[in-house]
């Protein structure tokens, strides 16, 4: 049921995530623009997302995140390989955990999947901490996009989402809005971190964020970003 809420409210949530993303990273990264030269040269159209490595104590993290990476990448204009089949393909080849999957040679990935680029995600934080006053669900993940032909790093980034955003008053009006949406989602969820992972995934992988992914060929905004030459 919680998922329906998330879907119905996706546009709203996405907008809020964009706001919050802008607020969170806009000022902090000012002046250090990401170098998109390799990204633009590679010009990837299809992305293979490997099952994320989980360095949090919560075993649910990998597949919670993996099931929510397609939306931000596809809406940014990329073909995203079917995550369920990709996971199954690794398993049928005897690789049952993400660290092993991340070790597979790039050339081999290219052969099997025919993907332009591979996305390697590591989940650094995933879970809910409970205190006397309140609980907080927090998800932090980092990602690297690698070209499967040239083997160059095209992009890397990191993002966090927390159910406590805006609770400490310095978030202002936007913070309050984020908080309202998040608590609505979270209160109805059994895995309270899952919707937070969805927001973290969006912030991490949607194009149009400061120093974020560029738009891909299937987006109407393709080639409008990353300081594209006129």
């Amino acid at each position: 049921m919680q998922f329906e809420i998330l879907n119905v409210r996706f546009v709203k949530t996405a907008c809020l995530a964009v706001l919050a993303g802008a607020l969170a990273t806009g000022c902090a990264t000012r002046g250090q623009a990401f170098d998109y030269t390799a990204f633009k040269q590679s010009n990837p159209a299809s992305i293979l997302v490997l099952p994320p490595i989980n360095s949090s104590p919560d075993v649910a993290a990998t597949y919670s995140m993996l099931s929510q990476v397609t939306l931000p990448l596809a809406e940014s204009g990329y073909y995203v390989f079917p995550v369920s089949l990709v996971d199954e393909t690794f398993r049928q080849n005897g690789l049952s955990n993400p660290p092993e999957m991340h070790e597979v040679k790039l050339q081999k990935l290219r052969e099997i999947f025919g993907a332009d680029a591979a996305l390697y995600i590591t989940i650094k934080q995933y879970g809910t901490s409970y205190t006397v006053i309140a609980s907080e669900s927090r998800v932090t993940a980092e990602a690297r996009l690698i070209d499967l032909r040239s083997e160059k790093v095209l992009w890397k980034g990191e993002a966090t989402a927390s159910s406590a955003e805006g609770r400490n008053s310095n978030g202002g009006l936007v913070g309050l809005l984020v908080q309202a949406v998040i608590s609505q989602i979270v209160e109805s969820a059994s895995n309270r971190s899952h919707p937070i992972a969805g927001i973290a995934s969006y912030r991490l992988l949607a194009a149009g964020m400061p120093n974020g992914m560029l738009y891909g060929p299937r987006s109407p905004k393709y080639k409008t970003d990353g300081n594209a030459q006129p």
Partner: protein
Amino acid sequence: MLTRLSFVGALVLSGCATKPQPLYYWGDYQPQVYGHFTKDTGPQEQIESLEAGLEKARASGKPVPPGYLAHLGILHAELQRPDEMRKYFEAEKTQYPESTAYIDFLLRKYKQAK
């Protein structure tokens, strides 16, 4: 500080005022995939939800996202329906030619396994 705030304000306004239309009809795709991974949702249940979603996508005039049709393919494979599997795999390929090499790889594997 004020300039920075108004910059953020502009981002905020442009972000939401233009209301970017999603490219795809998502329906329950991601939640169903999550249920697939956690095994909380069986293949038949996922198929019912996702095939109903195909109708809704048609009505909305938006395509289903990358992976949607291929995931339906693997669900039918789990239920030993190779014709349905092949139908959805081919449909993924037609809608998204980027998947061609991988789908062909899967179909070859399937043939070998038979």
